[in-house]
């Protein structure tokens, strides 16, 4: 079913889009897919290259079992079929950053078959995007063109790093859905620890296949826009590519099957190569590697080892803690945050915990430039802070200040409260003294209040708070004022 909504208004009526994504996700693994070389990001050029990665004569690939397990875990998390026998093929092409002259990939028999990802739309509805397949392949190195005027340099650190290519069905119907899909996929990969999802470092890259059609019509000819490295670029590229196709079709032209590149500066896509220029990759099974066979019992054990996934967790948060679908969805998106909520909300006011996480904590993380995924706040610190709010030790405002300091310094909650003087004054005697003082200083306002201008209550609270240097517990101030003014 197509989602209501996204339509492109052409001169001659409406168009609908159909989009499929091919996501390249770098597998979290200390070693490469077929060699023992390390994979850390940002190392000195060519410092993480084995003899196999450099395709020295006589060197042979050996499959990294950990990477296979990661692909299987990912397949299971995508509710996909796990193929107990899969085959590695060689994809042959020449490029200086591809040392063997072929990429080892999986062509006709991937390790993972059909699966699905469920998207939560903003209006609360859900959409399912089909996964066509997931296969393992090795990454190429990097050509560096701007380092020397007379030559291209090649860095092979990335050569041989394990990638999962995750291919979706053309089920996506809007740029927003593409963004939701990518975020959801990234969330799942992070939950199970198979990809860090870091798009800036290139751990997650997407190619999008875009076609347009009259609503409900047959799929049109697609174009592939390659190598998009942010959610925003994916959404923008889909938008401009679909618009380009509509314009082309309405002008009587035809969409050509081709590969295009997105230019984010100009906001357009450009042709990279046409179908005629497409490579003949001459795929054939890699004779250096035997077919990969998996033991079904091992696959079942991996399935049992999977953590609670975002969809299940969201349902549990809604059922157990009475959260709204929206709040639960926000909380489960990053596993670290969901874990934090799970630990702190138990035996506390879940709604208060949820609001504090989504408000002050997310604000503090954002201000510190920290991804929610990497939230450094330990559960006991958040629990302590929530408890100090509940017992009136700190105000909501004070707690926001405390959490910012926790995020940036990792220091103890109570120490921060004391140091910053955020402890609220709740002592009845002290507060009553302040109230008496304010009343004594403002006889005219007291008279106005008693004449019926009860809106002045807020003004009185403000005066007392001010007199306390902001440390008085507002609830206690409120109670004391009411007793004194109304009494």
């Amino acid at each position, binding site marked *: 079913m197509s989602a209501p909504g996204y339509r492109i208004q052409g001169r001659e009526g409406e168009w609908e889009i159909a989009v499929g994504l091919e996501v390249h996700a770098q597998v979290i693994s200390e070693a490469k897919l077929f060699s023992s070389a390390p994979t850390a990001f940002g190392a000195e050029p060519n410092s993480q290259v084995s003899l196999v990665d*450099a395709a020295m004569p006589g060197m042979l*690939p*050996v499959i990294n079992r950990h990477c296979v397990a990661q692909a299987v875990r990912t397949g299971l998390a995508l509710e996909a079929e796990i193929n107990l026998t899969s085959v590695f093929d*060689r994809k*042959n092409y020449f490029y200086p950053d591809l040392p063997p002259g072929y990429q080892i990939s999986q062509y006709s028999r991937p390790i993972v078959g059909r699966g699905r990802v469920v998207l939560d739309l903003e209006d609360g509805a859900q959409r399912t995007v089909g996964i066509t397949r997931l296969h393992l392949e090795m990454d190429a190195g990097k050509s560096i063109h701007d380092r020397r005027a007379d030559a291209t340099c090649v860095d092979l650190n990335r050569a041989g790093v394990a990638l999962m290519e995750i291919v979706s069905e053309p089920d996506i119907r809007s740029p927003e859905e593409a963004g939701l899909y990518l975020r959801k996929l990234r969330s799942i990969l992070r939950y199970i620890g198979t990809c860090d999802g870091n798009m800036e470092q290139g751990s997650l890259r997407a190619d999008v296949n875009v076609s347009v059609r009259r609503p409900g019509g047959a799929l049109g000819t697609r174009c592939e826009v390659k190598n998009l490295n942010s959610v925003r670029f994916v959404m923008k590229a889909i938008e401009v590519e679909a618009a380009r196709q509509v314009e082309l079709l309405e002008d009587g032209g035809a969409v050509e099957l081709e590969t295009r590149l997105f230019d984010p500066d100009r906001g357009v896509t450009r042709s990279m190569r046409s179908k005629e220029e497409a490579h*003949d990759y001459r*795929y054939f099974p890699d004779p250096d590697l035997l077919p990969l066979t998996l033991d079904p019992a091992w696959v079942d054990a991996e399935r049992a080892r999977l953590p609670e996934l975002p969809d299940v967790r969201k349902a549990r948060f809604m059922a157990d803690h009475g959260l709204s679908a929206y709040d639960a969805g926000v909380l489960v998106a990053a596993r670290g945050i969901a874990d934090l909520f799970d630990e702190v909300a138990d035996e506390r006011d879940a709604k208060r915990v949820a609001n504090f996480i989504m408000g002050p904590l997310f604000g503090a993380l954002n201000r510190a430039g920290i991804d929610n995924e990497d939230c450094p706040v330990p559960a006991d610190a958040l629990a302590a802070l929530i408890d100090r709010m509940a017992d009136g030790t700190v105000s909501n405002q004070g707690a926001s200040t405390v959490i910012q300091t926790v995020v940036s310094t990792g220091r103890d909650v109570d120490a921060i409260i004391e140091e910053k003087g955020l402890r609220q004054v709740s002592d009845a005697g002290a507060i009553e003294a302040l109230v008496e003082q304010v009343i004594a200083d403002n006889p005219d306002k007291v008279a106005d209040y008693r004449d019926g201008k009860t809106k002045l209550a807020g003004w009185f609270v403000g005066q007392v708070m001010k007199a306390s240097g902001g440390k008085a517990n507002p609830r206690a101030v409120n109670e004391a004022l009411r007793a004194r003014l109304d009494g």
Partner: protein
Amino acid sequence: MSALTALTIADARAGLAARTFSARELVDAHIAAVEAGRGLNAFVAETFDHARAGADAADARLAAGEGRLLEGIPLAVKDLFCTKGVRSQACSKILEGFAPPYESTVTANLWSAGALMLGKTNMDEFAMGSANVTSADGPVVNPWRRRGEDKPLVPGGSSGGSAAAVAARLCLGATGTDTGGSIRQPAAFCGIVGMKPTYGRCSRWGMIAFASSLDQAGPLTRTVEDAALMLQAMAGHDPRDSTSIDRPVPDYAASLTGSVRDLTIGVPAEYRMEGMPAEIEALWADGVRWFREAGATVVDISLPLTRYALPTYYIVAPAEASSNLARYDGVRYGLRVEGDDPAEMYARTRAAGFGREVRRRILIGTYVLSAGYYDAYYLKAQKVRTLIARDFEAAFESVDAVLTPTAPFAAFAIGEKMDDPIAMYLNDVFTVPASLAGLPAISVPAGLTADGLPLGLHLIARPFDEPTLFRAAGVLESAAAFGHRPPAPGEAEAA
């Protein structure tokens, strides 16, 4: 010729163990032989210092009674094996100056068994050839001559340098590699033993790849027992080669019991090739007779798909080669011819670096893998390959080994068959089926042609049944009592 160079490996082991002579004396005698035999062009690199130093260490071990399986045995290594710090160029210009920082598993196994390297041997470029005429280092001369002629003959290929060196007594044994017959055919042409083990028995790690699903290392020696001893050291599981098989290496020499009474030998009708010289037919019949006389049962069998083996091989092997050789692009090592862009650099480098035969096979391989041709060629060839393996499986339900000639003719003159690649490819017609099926096979010198050139008989056994293969080959060797040897360099044939 020194008596020490005429020894077998088995004899040399005994002499060394008894301290009749030292490893240093054995090595020095072979160094002198290599120097005297340079006219054969069998060696492309000499590592005498390495051999001498190793010999002294071997003598120390032998004196302490700690000699290993091949302690102090001087060997030669085909240039296809990567040897640390020593040129490893597959006799191709494209690997000019390449001396790897690593040692192949097979050679490392030999060195840890105490063997010593005299040098690297000549071969067809990237093992593509059957006459050692495609080498960038020039052709190898077979130490044999036709009776009454001095025309230089080919040693066969691709392990031509190894075969010539062993036949001419320049070393006690040599490593070879066999993709479609590259150990067995040159062994037959040079009158020595050449053995290809089961695919997966020897590690391919550090062996420069030609066709990965077919390449296997194996020994070239002067006796079957020596082949058993060498393979003992070479074989074994290697986790760095995913196609290497993890199963124990039996004591191969112990399998040479001299008895074949319990064996059934199959003779496949389909190997009776039209136009095959009568003397090869006759030698084959001799082989049958020898086995019968030794008490074996000999039966006619059928391997109906034999005639498809050669065309299948010449699709599968070039297909894999076209991809395996893509890494020689001038970017990281070996030859580079600069160009204005990468494509031009590749084209120039590869045009200058690869010889004609290698280029031909890359083109064939690229073609058979191309979109639109893949199904008709590569995929079909893989299916036929499976069927050929089934032919053998069926045959091995009733026989223990298959007996055939090794090659359809004897050594020919350098320069012959050069203008017709198909005629050249026919060299491998009897050896290729076992390669496609991954089976162990051996060539044993069994007789001479009328004009005095050696001919081999060929045995094929079940996967990993090297013990039976060696046992049958040993009996064949004894019965044939070949005993001929080529003239030593500069000497007329003594016969």
